Every structure is written in C-alpha cells, then in structure tokens.
C-alpha cells in the first residue's frame, strides 16, 4: 500500500515538474488576484489590514478551484484513469494519493507564499503563522472537496464554469473558518477554536471525500 501511494505521488510530482508552467500559473494567479484588491479599494493601511485575511482566503479558494481541472483531465484524456479504475488497489487510496500530490503542487505553494502577501497588506507579524496554519489546514479540504466536483464534471463541455458552480458553495465553511481564524487572532480572541474546527473538517473530508470521488470517477468513466 505504502509503495503504491509513494509511486502515485512520485509520478504526479514528476508530471507536474515536466509541466512546470501549469503549476506556476496557479501560484501567479493567486499573487495577481490578491495584488489587485488594493488597486480596487485604495491603499489605506487600516482598511487593507482589515480585509487582508478575507482577500487572501478568497484568492486561495479561487486558485485552488482553477487548478482542479488539472487533477483528472489529462489522465481522462489519455486513458490512464481507466487503468486506475481497473487497478487491484482500492480506488479510494489512489484518489487520496492523487489529491495529496495535487495539494503539494497547488495548495502548499499558497501556504508558503501567504507571509509574503501578509507583508503586502501590512498584517501584524504575529498573525503570519496563524494565516499560514489556517491555509495549511484549509487548502487540503479545498483540494479534497474540489476533487469531487472535478470528478463529476470530467470531460463535460463548459466544465470549468460548472465546476465553480458546484464547488464554491461547498467551500463556504472553509472560507469562514480560515479567514475567521486570522480575524479572531487579530481581535485578540485566539485562533484555536477556528483552527480546531478546520482540523475537524479536514478529518471529516479526508474520511468521506475519497469515497465520493471514487463513485464520481466510476460514473464518469462508464
């Protein structure tokens, strides 16, 4: 089992490395969207400090959502997905490995870049770890929940916009808890409650999402 997981993660990371620009696009999208907001609402530092957690989180949501189409699309196109459905290993396990690899290339960069954006928005230094931690707990939920949508819309015309319609309402709790963690820490209330709830949701999603993704993939491949 461990060897299988490792092999899938390695394969996906290798493929991502061969197509580095795809990975870079997601990260650049995240940076650009966040940088657009001060241009829209004005450079007033107090205002920026207030809206920073929300903006960074919404941008992370959108970046994660846009990267989802890469999750299964190319494998669906070249038939690798059919082989995975036929494989002896449980499909749920394969899904977990693929989601983890996808998170490493689309979610983790956002976590690592978040302090840089926090500087841009003049957030207090003690909030950097809270923001990064909330993204660290939240982005895997986005990837796992989004994988359900990606599997359901596999190979459909207009799949991208449809994916947004399916997935964004389900992202609401993550956005509230993630941005709320930073807000609560900024207000001196402590972010523990939000972060614990995010962690609970991560456990819940990691338990049930692979099943839903497997079912959706089987439906799409029929």
């Amino acid at each position, binding site marked *: 089992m461990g060897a299988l997981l490792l092999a899938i993660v390695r394969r996906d990371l290798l493929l991502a490395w061969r197509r580095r620009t795809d990975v870079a696009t997601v990260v650049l999208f995240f940076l650009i969207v966040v940088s657009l907001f001060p241009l829209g609402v004005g450079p007033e530092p107090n205002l920026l400090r207030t809206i920073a957690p929300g903006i960074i989180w919404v941008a992370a949501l959108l970046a994660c959502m846009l990267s989802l189409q890469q999750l299964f699309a190319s494998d669906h196109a070249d038939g690798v997905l059919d082989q995975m459905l036929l494989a002896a290993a449980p499909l749920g396990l394969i899904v977990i490995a693929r989601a983890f690899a996808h998170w490493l290339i689309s979610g983790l960069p956002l976590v690592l870049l978040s302090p840089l954006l926090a500087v841009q928005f003049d957030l207090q230094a003690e909030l950097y770890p809270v923001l990064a931690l909330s993204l660290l707990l939240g982005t895997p939920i986005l990837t796992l929940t989004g994988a359900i949508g990606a599997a*359901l819309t596999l190979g459909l015309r207009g799949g991208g916009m449809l994916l947004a*319609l399916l997935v*964004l*309402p389900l992202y609401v709790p993550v956005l509230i808890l993630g941005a709320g963690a930073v*807000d609560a820490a900024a207000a001196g209330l402590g972010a523990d409650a939000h972060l614990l*709830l995010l962690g609970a949701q991560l456990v819940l999603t990691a338990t049930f999402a692979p099943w839903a993704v497997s079912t*959706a993939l089987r*439906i799409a491949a*029929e």
Partner: protein
Amino acid sequence: MNQPAQPPALWAGGINWFKYAAPQTFYPLAGTMIPWFGWAAAVLCVAGLYIGFFIAPTDHQQGESYRIIFIHVPAAWMSMLVYLAMAFWAAVGLTFNTRLSHMMATALAPTGALLTFLALWTGALWGKPTWGTWWAWDARMTSELILLFLYFGFMGLQAGIDDPRRADRAGAVLALVGVVNIPIIYFSVKWWNTLHQGASVSLTSAPTMAATMLAGMLLMALAAWFYTIAATLHRVRSIILEREHGAEWTRPLRENPR
C-alpha cells in the same frame, strides 16, 4: 420450488413495493394523484391566505408587514425539506439503481429552487419595513442563499451532462455531498454571523403567536407540501415521457396526450 420465478423485489404484506418503481406503472398513478394534491393545495392556500390576511390580528410590534410570514415561513420550510427529499431519492437511486428515483430527484430540484427564491424574496420584502434593509447577511438568509446555489449547482450539473444515466448518478452524488455539507454550512454561517454582528430582530424572541396566526401558517405549510407534491409529480411525468420516448407504451400518449 414450484413458485414462478420472480424478479428481486421488496415484498411485504403481500404488496410488491417496487411495482410503482417502474416509470410505466408510475406514470398513470402520478396522473391520478396530481389533481388531488393540486386542488388540495389550492383550497388550503386560499383558506390559509384568508385567515392570514383577514382574520389573524395585527402584530403589535411589526404591524401589518408581518403577514408576509404566511408565505415566507412555509416557503423556507419547504425549501429545506425539498433538498432532503432530493437527497433521499438520490440515495435510493444510487443504492437500488432505480431510474424513477433519479427522475424524482431531478423533478424536485426546480421546485426547491423556486421555494428557496420565494423565501429569500419575501424575506427581503419583510426585512425592508422591519429591519430597514433588504439584505442583512443574517445567518438564516445567508445559508438560504447558499442553499439556492446548491440547487443551481445540482440543476447545472444535470443540464451539463448529455447522457441521462450519467446525469442522474452524478447529480445524485452531488445531492448527497450537499446534504452532508448543509449542517456544516449552516453552523459556520451562524457562527460567522454572531462573530461579526448580531441579528437586529430575532423571530425567536418575538411574543408567542396568536392561535389564528398559527392556524394560517400551518394551513399554508400544508398547501406548500401539496403544491410541491403536485408540481413534482407533474414534472416527473414530463421527464418520464422524455426519457421513455422510444418505448412502446408511450406511443398512445404521444399520439393522443391526455
């Protein structure tokens, strides 16, 4: 040993509970039920609105504007219930692989979206005179709005898939994922709201309702139930005809629709 071979069916009390799972047998049954539920909805609606608008007393805090709850509250109740019903049929369809269950889920979605929209709209109409604003990001309103998006997602997904079988089953998975998420969404929104701002007026702290108000509301709630059933049955009949277009039994219906 001598019993005739039977299809695997759920037999209990001498009744084959799967008999009406076949679109062919359900189509005429739905046809007979629609007028009953439709007329019951119409009568209950007239009675409920009469009690609500003419008999129920004026509220001493909110004046006449409170009367919108006779439409608003039943619509809001039904909007949530319909999603549960949709998820139920989706689960039945995925488990037993019955086509009719999926058709029921598909038929419920537009009615659910309509009632959700009605609840939001009447809520806004009530909010303007009472809270002084059309929209307040109140926890209930926000989660109702997200419910509307969930309905749109379900309908969008089914509309986006050409193969009916895949559309059915993909929609079913989405409905089940949505129903698991609804409590999480509701509580996160509620918590987010209390962190940011309190609700200006809470329904729970309002004085206890007069008996006639309650009667009007319950009548309207029943009317909403019956309307939903009638509308869904009507829509499911259309879906059956669409899907079974090539089947032999639909030919007389196609040539001479009743």
